[in-house]
């Protein structure tokens, strides 16, 4: 199969799909042009992610990676969520095909974007270089 059983499980039954209407932070990466968009909604309490939901437009591995990533940060302190790497997501998914690795990168970045949004909303200082920006992404050749 193209995807591992874990990927397929998360694709078939994605965890934490949906919206948090009163989210404390929202992060979005990708664009429809390049074929993948991920949006993460966080509820944050005392520096801990108490709830997380996602919406994804994208391929099977994008959906699975979003689902897995939300599982991995739910209930975790922000600082721990920030250190989640795409590699960890790939491992948790039992691997992704080489050309789908970028989906795990998107998941990592969507979380970071959401946390950045939280820092911004709350006037918390942070180092911009720790956060992704779309221009540095090489996956889709924006015209």
């Amino acid at each position, binding site marked *: 199969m*193209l995807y591992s059983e874990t990927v*397929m499980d998360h*694709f*078939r039954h*994605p965890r934490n*799909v*949906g*919206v948090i209407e009163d989210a404390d932070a929202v992060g*979005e990466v990708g*664009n*429809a*042009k*390049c*074929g*993948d*968009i*991920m*949006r993460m909604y966080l509820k944050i309490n005392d520096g801990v992610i108490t709830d997380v939901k*996602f*919406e*994804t*437009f*994208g*391929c*099977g591995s*994008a*959906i699975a990676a979003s689902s897995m990533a939300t599982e991995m940060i739910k209930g975790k302190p922000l600082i721990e969520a920030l250190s989640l790497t795409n590699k960890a997501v790939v491992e948790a998914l039992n691997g992704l*095909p*080489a*050309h789908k690795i*970028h989906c795990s990168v998107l998941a990592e970045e969507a979380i970071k974007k959401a946390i950045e949004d939280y820092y911004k909303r709350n006037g918390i200082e942070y180092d911009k270089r720790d956060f992704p920006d779309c221009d540095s992404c090489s*996956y*889709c050749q924006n015209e």
Partner: protein
Amino acid sequence: MNVYADNAATTRVSRTALRAMLPYFDEMYGNPSSLHSVGQRAAEALYEAREKIAACIGAEPREIYFTSGGTESDNQAIMSAVEAGRRKNKRHIISTAIEHHAVMNTLKKLERQGFEVTLLDVPENGIITPEAVAEAIRPDTALVTVMYANNEIGTIQPIAEIGAICRERGVIFHSDAVQAAGHIEINVVRDNVDMLSISSHKFHGPKGVGALYVRRSVPLTRLIEGGEQERNRRPGTENVPGIMGMAAALYEACENMNVVAPKIMAMRDRLIEGLSKIPHSILNGDAKRRLPGNVNFCFEGVEGESIVLLLDEYGIQASSGSACASGSLDPSHVLIAIGRPHEIAHGSLRLTLSEENTQEEVDYILEKVLQVVEHLRNMSPVWRDLVEGKREYVIQ
């Protein structure tokens, strides 16, 4: 229920084709180049296959060359025309923006070698006009290559009209008929085609074998070097069982076409009608001038691979225009060429039917596609934005 609806990707080998192949594996397994009776029996089989295939497309047996598939046929046809052109200092090639990679990438290679390639724009209906070809022809045009029918959106090009123009203007005309052969009627004489590619596995023959029709007076050069097989044009021990399977499959497909095609077209049109009811969906390619079994839709707000994977969960095998499987993130060049924006082109679904499909299956497909599109839209941030008016619908 299991519904195979990816017949443009490949087809099941028919019983007729399999029956035609089997004796050549372990009974009449000779090498057609061998002098002895076992070899000569294989040589006779090859000739029969050549006759059958020729008969199906209005050609003569000696105008048929066997290859390893559609890709090789396309490559050899183009490289031959280019070789002939080179000798006359003609370095211009005309094609379309919606050709298969076998043609497109060969043209790209030639561009790197200094050839000039004009890729004709394709209107939204996916069908180029003969006039566009006529206008593009120059004194240094070595080749016009236009596919008979498109593999993604199924549109059928006006090949006979283009052929007439090319013949009149003295330009070699090749057509990639890989998707057309066995599905719609082809006649190389009527169509004024100089070279025509076919691939066995697209009409219920085996994979790994194809043919190239080359008109008597058109020079064919070798793509590979070796022995003197195929009148010294395509070396290598011939794939005798594969060739027998291909000939039997094509013959059967052409014989039954009048009966089978209308049945498939009815299912196609029912599918098109049903899918059109999904809001913000659009049919790709002309509704009528398309292959009998081809249905291709874009659904706004969802991505093609996930549609395909979820349908597969329901036992439905389909494909998406996007070339995800191949590692590329680019959406289909065909959908872009007919004017679909990138974000829409990513959300395409191709369903390609054969005579093995049933009305019941069509209804099952309709039910499941509806379900899957709804499911995916429900988790799509793009769809949410559209619904909430934060983004404008591309497809009304």
